[in-house]
């Protein structure tokens, strides 16, 4: 018999008067009441577990129906030729075979990767820079104001922001070119030149997502132990040295998180190029998800579009794995 059950038995003996009233031997009555308590506890635990499952069930259903099932479906669909109207035709790996010689897929992956690297770098660098400025110099009220200001664009949908920005950056009547003209500066072909369109997409994407990295870094910098910074200050460390040697290593997990999430999001860039440039001029802003959308919903090649999605998924998986592997050398978990 274990020590625990012996202890229960001993505690049962201490409450003998209640058992004496039933006319049974006290030991037997104590055992019975302990067993009843255990059963009641088990029932409560089961109810709580069920309640917990019930609470997450609705969210789980949404995730399964709208995320997990489509992901699995796209893996299956990638093996079929299907125009959504006639019956699907099994083609095995033909879609993947066709992908290898499709220049638009390779090109879109290159465009997307290029945009992703620039956007994530700017989001992390600017987010961190602004967080440092705000955290170090501003009062609490000003800090809150800055947090709200930088986070505000994230509350609007990317599509609606893109519509507004398409007008703001319009070559012919956009506000930006209007002011450039007032200042007697040359107008810029924001959306009708290759470089201009890429820069505009980057600008809009960074502007909208900056609040996310900014908030992350403000929180991370706030959690850097004050005594460590104080000790460094007493030792005469310059602000730059304190940043590179203390703050940055301590917030490196946040840098990894921000860059990983940013990269995953940016590799799926769609709204800005779809609304503002339609992937143009030419294919200069033609991202992979835009290609997937047009292949599936406009060219009605759902199987082929699914195959492109699977490739994008694999690319993202590899990039993330590399990111985590490399991070072992520069991320410090305290």
């Amino acid at each position, binding site marked *: 018999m274990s020590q625990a059950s012996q202890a229960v038995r001993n505690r049962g003996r201490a409450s003998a008067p209640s058992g004496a009233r039933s006319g049974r031997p006290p030991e037997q009555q104590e055992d019975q009441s302990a067993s009843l308590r255990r059963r009641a506890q088990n029932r409560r635990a089961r109810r709580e577990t069920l309640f917990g499952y019930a609470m997450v069930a609705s969210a789980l259903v949404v995730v399964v129906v709208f995320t997990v099932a489509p992901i699995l479906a796209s893996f299956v669909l990638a093996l079929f030729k299907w125009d959504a109207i006639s019956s699907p035709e099994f083609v095995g790996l033909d879609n993947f075979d066709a992908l290898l010689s499709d220049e638009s897929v390779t090109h879109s992956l290159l465009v997307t990767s290029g945009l992703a690297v620039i956007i994530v770098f700017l989001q992390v660098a600017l987010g961190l820079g602004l967080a440092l400025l705000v955290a170090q110099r501003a009062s609490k009220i000003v800090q809150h104001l800055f947090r709200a200001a930088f986070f505000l664009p994230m509350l609007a949908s990317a599509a609606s922001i893109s519509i507004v920005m398409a007008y703001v950056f319009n070559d012919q009547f956009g506000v930006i070119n209007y002011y450039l003209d007032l200042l007697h500066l040359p107008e810029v*072909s924001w959306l009708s030149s290759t470089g201009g369109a890429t820069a505009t997409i980057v600008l809009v994407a960074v502007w909208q997502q900056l609040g996310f990295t900014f908030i992350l870094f403000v929180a991370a910098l706030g959690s850097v132990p004050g005594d460590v910074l104080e000790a460094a200050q007493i030792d005469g460390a310059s602000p730059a040295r304190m940043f590179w040697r203390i703050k940055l290593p301590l917030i490196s997990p946040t840098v990894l998180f921000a860059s990983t999430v940013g990269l995953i999001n940016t590799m799926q860039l769609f709204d800005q190029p779809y609304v503002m440039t339609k992937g143009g001029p030419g294919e200069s802003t033609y991202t992979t998800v835009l290609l997937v959308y047009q292949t599936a919903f406009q060219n009605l090649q759902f199987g082929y579009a699914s195959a492109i999605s699977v490739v994008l998924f694999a690319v993202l998986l590899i990039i993330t794995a590399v990111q985590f592997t490399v991070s072992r050398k520069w991320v410090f978990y305290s």
Partner: protein
Amino acid sequence: MSSGILKEQFSRRGVLRAGVASAAVAGVGGLASACSSGSSSSSDSKVLNVLVFTDQASANKLSTAAAPFEAAHPGMKVKFTGITGTDWNDFFSKLLTQIAAGNAPDIVSVATEGLQLFAAKGLAEPLDDYVKRDASELKSYFADVHPALIEAMMYQGHLYELPTDFNAGNMFYSTSLLESAGVGRPADDWTKDDFYDIATKIARKGGSAVPYNWVVRLWGSWTSWMYANGGNLLTEGKWDGGDWLWNTFYPNDPAASGRKGGWRWGDPTANSAPVVESLDYMIQLQKEGLSAKPDVGGGATLQGLFASNKIGMSVGGGFWAGGLHNAGMKTGSFDVQYFPKWRTQRHLFGAGGYGILKSSKNKDLAWEFVKSLVSAKNLDVLMPGNTTTFPRKSMMTAERYSTTGPKNWHVFYDTLTKFPETAPIPAPPYYQAMAIALNKRTTEAMSSGKAKAALDGLQSDLETAMKTG
């Protein structure tokens, strides 16, 4: 204390009960919704679902056109649903997704852009038998409609739609901008050189207005120059068939001579000399500051800029009359002329109509309704305020355009009669892939200044699209 309140307000049992109740309500709601949508369910067989390319508020206004039909067919209800989109490609994507999801309407508005797409996919019902059956009733309609519009609604020898509207690519101009540049109304047979002279004069005058502007799309884009230059993106041909229609309705009409069973779009010719030359001309105009950098899309921005007197000349169709008037342009401040002559003075046009879907369980009634839509009275309801060109010539009157302009409104319909070689835009069954490729390669050419390279790319894109269908 707060936990006590929470326990009182959200007891587990209460929450679970509420959850079950909500699920039940949602289920019942979903069921009710499923029962009320689509024409395929038995309880809903008295509803004709019509899908139109517009917003829902405008779609609701169309119900006036259904009133006489509903009165003539007691128990029938016509339900108009609007779908918005940036262009026809966007609309077709949404429509095809809806059809794939099992929510196919009975009738759908489809323009030239999508007619062959829907016919080739076996989604649209040919109207031949209905038209033959009701030939006597339809004689007055066909007598009033130019055969070019009818032929544009045919595919592989079958008629799929009765045209309800059309727009030819003419040249709109700002009368005040031309006058200020010392230029009068161009002659009917004006040429590309005349156009260039006028554009140069407007540019010399200075100011913020651009002499010429256009939009990247298939209809009325640089493609109008391509047609005038005798080029096309695809090899032109005609399907056999349709004799029954021409013999029945246009027996002695010279305009019906040579008409067959619809346009047959063959191998791509996107990098042929006249096509390259046309796009090169657009690049030249842009480089010389005679044309603005074109936007991609439906053309609303272009119309807005024209209405603001920021554009001297632009390609436009009959729908511009109402559009410019609604945008605030006064009658007389703009006018329209035929597209200038290059090697030819051939124009392009696009036509619209209502098709019946094969999946409809009310095809006979759908036909009755479609037939009722082409009456002059209903066409007025469908397209109010000169927002299109009517296919019935009798409806094109001076009185109609007296409130909106333009002064030379007759140009809209006369384009078909004056230039018999005028043809519909090249919209094959793979129109959607073609539209994407055209936008992509046009913007490439305009940003790089290399028309030939871009059109070589377009040629390759179209060849691929043609193969994959």
